[in-house]
């Protein structure tokens, strides 16, 4: 009486293509590559800043081309959809707020995140003189 459990074959490399939710998960997870790119781009900027005015202006000039415009525009839209907005949506699951017997409704936590995000963004734009 040997038992032969059926093991459904699942590809280790393409499993997320079977289901929309898995695909969305993978689209979110790969945002870490964008985070890495922008971290090291910012570190490069800091290195240029530490080296003096000429190097800093050279760095700014090196960033001003069509390829970078296309890359940043794509990165901005992708990052907003798959990391920023997703993170705000998950926030009430990760940090539920308990009020006595009840829980604060999810939408208040999500709205608070959007308000804080708008505030942070406007503050940075104000700080850098964009607005």
């Amino acid at each position, binding site marked *: 009486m040997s038992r032969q459990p059926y093991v459904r074959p699942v590809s280790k490399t393409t499993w997320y293509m079977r289901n929309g939710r898995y695909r969305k998960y993978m689209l979110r997870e790969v945002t*870490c590559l964008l985070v890495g790119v922008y*971290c090291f781009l910012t570190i490069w900027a*800091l290195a240029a800043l530490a080296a003096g005015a000429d190097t*800093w202006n050279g760095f700014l000039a090196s960033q001003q081309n069509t390829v970078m*415009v296309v890359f*940043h525009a794509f990165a901005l839209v992708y990052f907003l959809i798959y990391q*920023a907005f997703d993170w705000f949506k998950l926030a009430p699951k990760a940090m539920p707020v308990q009020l006595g017997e009840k829980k604060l409704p999810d939408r208040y936590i999500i709205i608070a995140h959007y308000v804080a995000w708008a505030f942070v*963004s406007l503050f940075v734009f104000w700080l850098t003189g964009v607005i």
Partner: protein
Amino acid sequence: MAIAKKAFVWGLFAAGGTVTAFVFPVLIALFLIVALGIVPEGLRFENIYAFATNWVGKTALFIVISLSLWHAAHRLRVVFHDFGVRMDNAVANAVYLVALIGTVLTAFYLYKI
């Protein structure tokens, strides 16, 4: 020990994820504005230098960059697993090493400014 280590790594991941969600859209937008050929007032050398010389500016830059690096490193470790790479120890050492190098470089350049 294993649990303590996991909590530490996951704590950095969560903190970094929150930082990236709040700060990276505006950071990418700034790079986009510069790429379009416009240099905002605050990114001219004197102004950005003054910001990065100030300890508040230094602290803000260090926290944002280092937490984001550790967030990305931890997520990349999981991404490797999801794409079928099963050498978790080697992957973990590699991605956390890159995050560590980035953190040290950030501290070094901020110290030099």
